[in-house]
């Protein structure tokens, strides 16, 4: 009915008078037999956040693959993705029904090959996150509703919106204040800086330890000459570790094309 009226792209709430003599329990099971006299329809659509473009650019620029897991209809998602410039064909859309009653292997293939998933139930989202994690893929799940809760909890990094449900914020690792997607680049940036600084300094230290061990073993094995006197090693420490580690820590290298 909604599709006929071109309302398929919205979330629709129908208010009407039920004409059958059916209890609420009965018509939950038999929606087809329900006779309703419509009074009004409220159609709700999502507005694209202005800062989502920056976040998408950041993800694309850093090789982060996106998947949209939505409870909305395929049409509604298609409409939204068209606005952000993603041309998605009907054949590229996977719905919750497609994911029911399939083997783990088939499920994994569908999850890996597709980007947009519509009409998902919370258990579908959870299974998708679990499948990705099983394949050693680091996952971050962004959501706001209670239906995102299991997936946010399961993901390596759960991100909730400030306006989301309180229980979702409770289990999330990060809550985006004022629902700002534009905060994601700076969060990502900060995390990258910390991880890369620690990794780089670690590399310097372990390299120095390793080559001192090599030199010591070589000079012991062959009774040969070596430069591993305390002064030499401390001089190598200055140029090989102290100064580089200081520069790496102070410079805080940025990892983005716009730096």
């Amino acid at each position, binding site marked *: 009915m909604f599709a006929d009226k071109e309302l398929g792209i919205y979330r629709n709430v129908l208010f009407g008078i039920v004409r059958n003599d059916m209890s609420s329990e009965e018509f939950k099971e038999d929606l087809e037999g329900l006779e309703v006299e419509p009074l009004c329809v409220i159609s709700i659509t999502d507005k694209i956040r202005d800062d989502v473009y920056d976040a998408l650019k950041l993800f694309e620029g850093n090789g982060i693959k996106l998947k949209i897991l939505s409870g909305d209809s395929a049409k509604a998602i298609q409409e939204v993705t068209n606005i952000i410039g993603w041309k998605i064909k009907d054949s590229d859309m996977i719905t919750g029904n497609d994911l029911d009653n399939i083997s783990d292997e088939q499920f994994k293939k569908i999850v890996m090959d597709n980007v947009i998933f519509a009409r998902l139930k919370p258990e579908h989202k959870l299974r998708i996150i679990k499948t990705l994690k099983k394949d050693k893929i680091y996952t971050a799940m962004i959501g706001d509703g209670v239906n995102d809760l299991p997936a946010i909890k399961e993901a390596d990094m759960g991100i909730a919106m400030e306006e989301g449900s309180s229980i979702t914020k409770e289990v999330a690792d990060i809550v985006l204040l004022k629902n700002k997607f534009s905060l994601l680049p700076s969060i990502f940036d900060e995390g990258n800086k910390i991880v*890369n600084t620690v*990794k*780089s300094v*670690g*590399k*310097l230290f*372990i*390299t*120095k330890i*390793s*080559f001192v*061990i*090599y*030199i010591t073993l*070589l000079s012991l094995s062959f009774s*040969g*000459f*070596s*430069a591993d*006197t305390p*002064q*030499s090693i*401390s*001089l*190598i420490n200055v*140029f*090989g570790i102290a*100064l*580089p580690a200081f*520069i*790496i820590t102070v*410079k805080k*290298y*940025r*990892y*983005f*094309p716009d*730096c």
Partner: protein
Amino acid sequence: MKELITFVILSALVIVVAGYAGIYFAEKYYAINEKEIQMVMLTIMIITNIANYFSIVLPDAGKKCTDLSSLRTWNFTWIYIPAATGSDMLMINLVKEFYEIDYVRPDLWVLIMTISIISSFILYFAQVQI
């Protein structure tokens, strides 16, 4: 973890091999005393260590924004090189004395720079490939 171990093993190996290659060629082609051999090895290892630092920093600094200011910071190196080339300033003398840096003959610098540059390129390109 695998990347870290590969990096460390490769770097340490190149630095040590470069140092010992310096000793080998210095003994083979130059009349050289023990202190000078030590200085050759030490200088090669210091320069290769600096290349090791660049092999960590430059690939990560962003493909479009190589941070050249870090290269400028390596002006610190000019403390060591004058010391090893016999400069006689007060600060240089203090550094020389503290770290027991000796004068390195100009002809040995050819060997040192040749081995250092070759090993630095090997180190840098090997690490970037990883």
